[in-house]
């Protein structure tokens, strides 16, 4: 067992990809000389040189499009976008090209591209650096959306994404980069097709992803002290969405609470809730509940930002209310 951080795990994943496959290269804003906005790519320029660690101009559309073109022409690019809010400047390329070309060309042109970006709030960066738009990307057919929450997924999801013939977006929650943990040396691969049950309990299913996993686990500990046991499910991928795992959990607990840092209206939590209605309705003992990000652009002030995001206390309170109601 090796102690590491989420940041180092991502870096090691990139390093391994560069070592193993000459077609892989990394490009993005400040990935080289600066070492990455979140220091994820520190040292890679020295190790791999400027051909493979490419600092780009602040031209999100151009360098994301360049990633698509390079992927079409034999390379396996990893494109880093500094934060999810900046990815909006490249939406034309992501949606109109990356997600679309395979279908629009009648199956002739697949795009084996990986795009990584930081997501989420919690660092007082206000409304243009803090949103959680991964669920919104999950709306789009043609791309895959990954949300590594654990150090293990941070370490191994990239390789799985790079082996995929189609575009994969990886959302790294920016509050997780400093998280420490151990990596099991025996694990050298993760699939991206299955959600994972992190904690078993019979009373309620908490369905979440990304940093929501850690807040939900924290909440589950509080609840356990009160005799309420929660299943905590990390979705891991928002597209494709693994229905089986959360529906299986629901069949056991009969109560579903969805925790999502993204906005409630039209978000991934709404999609999960709809699927439960469509497929798991008769397993429910009570209506599905949600703890989501407040429907405001993210404020700067710490107390307001804390109030805008799901917290262990608000998650525990929601779960408690659900279990006590008919328990």
């Amino acid at each position, binding site marked *: 067992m090796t102690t590491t951080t989420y940041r180092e795990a991502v870096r090691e994943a990139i390093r391994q990809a560069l070592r193993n496959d000459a077609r892989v290269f990394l490009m993005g804003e400040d990935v080289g000389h600066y070492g990455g906005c979140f220091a994820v790519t520190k040292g890679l320029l020295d190790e791999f040189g400027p051909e493979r660690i490419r600092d780009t101009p602040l031209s999100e559309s151009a360098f994301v499009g360049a990633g698509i*073109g390079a992927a079409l022409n034999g390379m396996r690019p990893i494109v880093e976008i500094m934060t999810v809010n900046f990815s909006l400047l490249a939406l034309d390329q992501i949606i109109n090209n990356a997600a679309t070309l395979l279908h629009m*060309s009648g199956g002739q042109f697949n795009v084996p591209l990986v795009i990584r970006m930081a997501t989420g709030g919690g660092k007082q960066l206000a409304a243009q650096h803090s949103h959680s738009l991964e669920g919104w990307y999950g709306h789009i057919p043609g791309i895959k959306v990954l949300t590594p929450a654990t150090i293990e997924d941070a370490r191994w999801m990239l390789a799985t994404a790079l082996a995929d013939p189609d575009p994969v977006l990886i959302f790294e929650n920016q509050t997780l980069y400093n998280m420490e943990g151990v990596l099991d040396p025996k694990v050298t691969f993760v699939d991206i097709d299955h959600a994972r049950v992190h904690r078993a309990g019979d009373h309620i299913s908490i369905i979440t992803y990304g940093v929501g996993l850690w807040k939900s686990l924290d909440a589950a500990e509080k609840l356990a002290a009160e005799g309420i046991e929660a299943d905590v499910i990390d979705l891991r991928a928002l597209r494709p969405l693994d229905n089986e795992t959360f529906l299986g959990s629901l069949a056991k607990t009969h109560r579903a609470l969805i925790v999502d840092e993204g906005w409630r209206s039209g978000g991934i939590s709404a999609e999960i809730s709809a699927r439960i209605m469509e497929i798991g309705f008769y397993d429910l003992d009570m209506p599905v509940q949600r703890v989501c990000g407040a429907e405001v652009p993210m404020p700067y002030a710490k107390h307001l930002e804390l109030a805008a995001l799901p917290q262990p206390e608000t998650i525990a309170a929601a779960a408690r209310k659900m279990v006590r109601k008919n328990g």
Partner: protein
Amino acid sequence: MSTDGRDFLYQMLRIRRFEEKCVELYSAEKIRGFLHLYIGEEAVAVGSISCLAPDDAIVATYREHGQALVRGVSASAIMAEMYGKLEGCARGRGGSMHFFDAQKRLYGGNAIVGGGLPLSLGLALADKMQSRQRVTCCVFGDGAVAEGEFHESMNLASLWKLPVLFLCENNLYAMGTALQFEHSVTELVKKADAYNVAAAAVDGMDVFAVKAATQKALDYIRAGGGPYFLECRTYRFRAHSMFDAELYRSKAEVQEWKKRDPIATLSARLKGEGAITGADIEQMERKVADEVSEAVNFAEAGPWEPVEDLTRFVYSERTPS
């Protein structure tokens, strides 16, 4: 020059007659959606695309019938695509605006103005990183030059010395917005200076001039000079699409440009030089008519994609090497 000249005339006639048939088929409701005709601009596609090597790449726009035909995508596959048939060059998923052909290295048919430019950077970057001597020819119009993606792409291509031929078809209108209403600097070739990109402007109604300018640009790119911006000044004789009352330009202006019709002028020139006879042209026309009618028959006879296959090609069905 006469051999080139005859072939150029033939290629331009192919595009013209093919599209004239498309207009009929549109009226007959065989072709639907948007149909953007290239009529009037044929010299640009013929003069430029004919200079490319078979392994060079093309990224085109929604007005790409000409490029596809000159590149060698079969008229039948193109017509079937416009019919929305299975045997179309994109299995009926694309239509008139989205022709693709992996074998011919035609990467669309992009209907977002400017959207193909970033793509061309990556195609060229991959060639450069893998030490291949290919060029990516990226076609776009004067409208795209106002898009941010144009400016981002010119900058990045120049910075990384990417082998891209930026081929601007300046037909003076971004849909219905005239050049002077869309650009603070209307001499588009000047934009290249800001990015240290080599550039030239050429008479896009003269197929020989387009060919010579393209050849020069390709030589420059293949010698490692980096990207090249070539502005071809041309004119669209027909409406922007089939839904355009042409309120933004006068009939007199269109008539004035029609005097420079690239087919009529080349034909007159070749006749004047004694390089071609009226009988030669008639024979050419018959050959073209046969090709067009064969394409229509192919499209008419072809099968539809089964509806069960609707959701295919959203994700790959194969694992690439």
